């Protein structure tokens, strides 16, 4: 058991280093450097100013020195300094992670619960109207681009029926820390969470439907039914427990990828999270920030995988420590 944990930790560390090195290399393969982008945004500069900035950011050193320094800093828990924001990357990420977690957890959890319920229902009556409706809706939700859904929802719920704010996370008039502040954030959260949730919902309803159909055809379910157990008991106690395993797997995976999922939604709704930060960093060649976010995402994936493992074992006692 301890040996297994040690091995896993070593694997994880190697994986994270590989992610860092690969990301670093890939970003530097792209043409253009942070100083050129920065100078462009400043509206130009003299050759001397450019050279000075390069030296200040350490970009005048050979790539292997830069990468070595970067790895060493990360090992000490320092993700570097953002050229663009003039702030340590760690504090930038910590500032932005809250809104993203709020958005993604709200969207993901509502989608998992509602999606699973819908999937389970439609699996039981495969040819009913409800079942077909769920299939059609989830196909549409799955294939429509997320920004399009976002804009359509804005048009519907902010413009045609003006009940929700178009963008942002808070109103400027509401003081932070009050009860009204919580309500205000919740009010702003509805549209982006709905947009992101619809995509996830489509996915989870399809997944749980397919998984439930499969489980319902297994022998042990047939046995349970033959024993004369009530329908409800068969579905919820026997079948669902197994059918929900793939849902857990994917929830874990997807939660690890929160940032990638949130980029577009955050941009459309001006949600002040990590997604917008990542998007801006790419456009601005703010490489340290971008590297920091990518590293942070990799860390999230690793942590979520471990958590998924734990949840798995609780749901299915047959899975033992591998």
């Amino acid at each position, binding site marked *: 058991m301890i040996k297994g944990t040690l091995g896993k930790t070593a694997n994880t560390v190697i994986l994270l280093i590989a992610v860092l090195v690969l990301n670093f290399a890939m970003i530097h393969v*792209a*043409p*253009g*450097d*942070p100083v*050129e*982008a920065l*100078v*462009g*945004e*400043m*509206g*130009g*500069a*003299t*050759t001397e*100013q*450019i050279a000075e*900035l390069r030296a*200040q950011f350490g970009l005048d050193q050979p790539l292997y020195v830069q990468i070595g320094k970067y790895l060493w800093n990360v090992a000490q828990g320092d993700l570097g300094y953002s050229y*663009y*924001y*003039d702030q340590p990357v760690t504090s930038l990420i910590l*500032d*932005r992670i809250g809104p993203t977690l709020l958005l993604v957890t709200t969207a993901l959890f509502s989608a998992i619960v509602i999606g699973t319920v819908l999937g389970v229902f439609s699996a039981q009556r495969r040819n009913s109207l409800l079942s077909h409706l769920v299939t059609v809706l989830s196909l549409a939700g799955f294939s429509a681009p997320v920004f399009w859904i976002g*804009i359509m929802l*804005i*048009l519907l719920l*902010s*413009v045609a029926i*003006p009940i929700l*704010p*178009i*963008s*942002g*996370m*808070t109103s*400027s008039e509401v003081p932070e820390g009050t009860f009204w502040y919580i309500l205000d954030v919740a009010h702003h959260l509805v549209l982006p969470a709905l947009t992101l949730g619809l995509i996830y919902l489509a996915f989870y309803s399809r997944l749980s439907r397919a998984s439930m159909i499969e489980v319902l055809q297994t022998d042990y379910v047939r046995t349970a039914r033959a024993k004369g157990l009530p329908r409800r008991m068969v579905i919820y106690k026997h079948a669902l427990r197994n059918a929900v395993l793939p849902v857990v797997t994917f929830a874990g995976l997807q939660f690890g990828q929160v940032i990638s999922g949130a980029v577009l939604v955050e*941009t*459309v*709704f*001006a949600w*002040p999270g990590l997604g*917008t*930060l990542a998007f*801006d960093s*790419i*456009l*601005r*060649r703010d490489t340290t920030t971008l590297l920091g976010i990518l590293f942070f995402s990799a860390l999230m994936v690793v942590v979520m995988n471990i958590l998924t493992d734990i949840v798995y074992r609780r749901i299915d006692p047959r899975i033992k420590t591998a």
Partner: protein
Amino acid sequence: MFQRLSRTFLGALPVALALSVGAAPVAHAEPKAGGTLTTFTSGYRTLNPAVQSGASTGSPGSQIFAGLVTVGQDYKIQPYLAKDWEVSADQLTVTFNLVSGAKFHDGAPITGEDVKFSLETVKANHPFGAAMFGNVGEIDVPSPETVVIHLNQPVPGLLLSMQPLLMPILPKHVYGDGQDIKTHPRNMENVVGSGPFKVEENNPAERLVLVKNEDFFIEGRPYLDKIVYPMVKDPLTRVLMLEKGEIDFAPFSGIRPTDVARIERAEGVNLTTDGYDAIGYVHYFEMNLRNEPFSNREVREALAHAIDTGFLSKVIFGGKAVPGTGPLHTGNPFYSADVPMYEPDMDKAAAMLDAAGYPVKDGVRFSFVLDVPSWAPQAHVPMAEYIQAQLEKLNIKVELRKAPDFGTWVQRISSWDYEATMNGSFNYPDPTIGVHRHFDCDNIKNVIWANTEGYCNPEVDKLLDAAAVEVDFDKRKALYAELQKTIQQDLVFIYMPQDFSATVYSDAVGNMPDTPFGALAPMYDTYLDK
């Protein structure tokens, strides 16, 4: 007195034009105090205009920091922090007298030492510092309310550069602590300014909130209690917020000409293109003049005959974008329309290409890659696609290479590793800032928006040098007229329609900032009538 001074120093502007003064109130009676004006921001990295040019920093920056002067209608220089000024007969000494009792937001008095510090800081750190103030020598502060600037040579655009966008008055006791001003922490945190509004909340991820400076040195101003800049990146979201009234005032709205009708239909929402003359945003087709075929002027002339900018303006931009005729924006005080123009004529273009040694061979005359930057797609993409289609008719194959991001494009152009690109730049009111940089032989540098095309004409250099120090407005205007003629004659660039820059605002906004600097000027006269 100001009128007299501005005539001799800045140069006299046409008298008839100079008669209209200040921002004219439109359809509102009495200005009202109070209210929160909501505008927007698309993101900024600093609030200090001394180290960053452009609108994202400039529009809040000009509210937070005061300048020595403001620029009124028709470029009339008006007193601001300087109550008056005097220029010596030899044009080499300028004395500014400051208003009494002006204070920074932290209560410290604004003195001549702060002005001196600001000018030196801008000169050394602003992207245009050297262009604007390169000839500024010694600065004396004989008394706390007097600043004397000694010039090595006359600087005709000096006063125009003294407004807050380009020369913000910074507190020396904050920024003079020896830290590098470009990365000074106080550029974003606990910002202490000198202007009509103070920073209340600065959270670039979400919003910037400015509140009225109760101790502002102009009695009874500003009218507004607050200006709120929520962060809105997505242009479509912005349009919806405007239509819904969540934004009152949107300068640099990024509205496409095709959206104009829609905005004008919306209840209580107006659109104006006033307030962009000083910025003077021009677009052009830039060719790398170092290599064949663009090193050949005949080829460039053929292209000019093939590219019908009138058609682009009228058809592609719905008649909303003014065709450019040269390096100066039509709203620039030195603009001249008297330049060679190349009438649209495809047959003539084909004949010229034949004569220049580029006949059709295997169906093609020549081919090139046209870079399209990522930063003004609403303008550059249709322009590039039109050029591609027109040149196709002449058997010139154009491959469009759309840059995925800003850095990629900047790298290609500033390292001269390109054949042709769509491009655009700001004039700024004085040509020494935004125009000279493109044509000066000494400025052929690996820097974006320098002379990247590689144009060098000693005659032009002479004109630039003379115009840079000519203080007589009419003589200077004649020099720039000659420059515009020569640039069009040499076809350094092929000028495209000028930028369609528009401000969208609600009926409630009174005293819209519609001077040449528009929303980049201080908005202490603006009010809300809700």
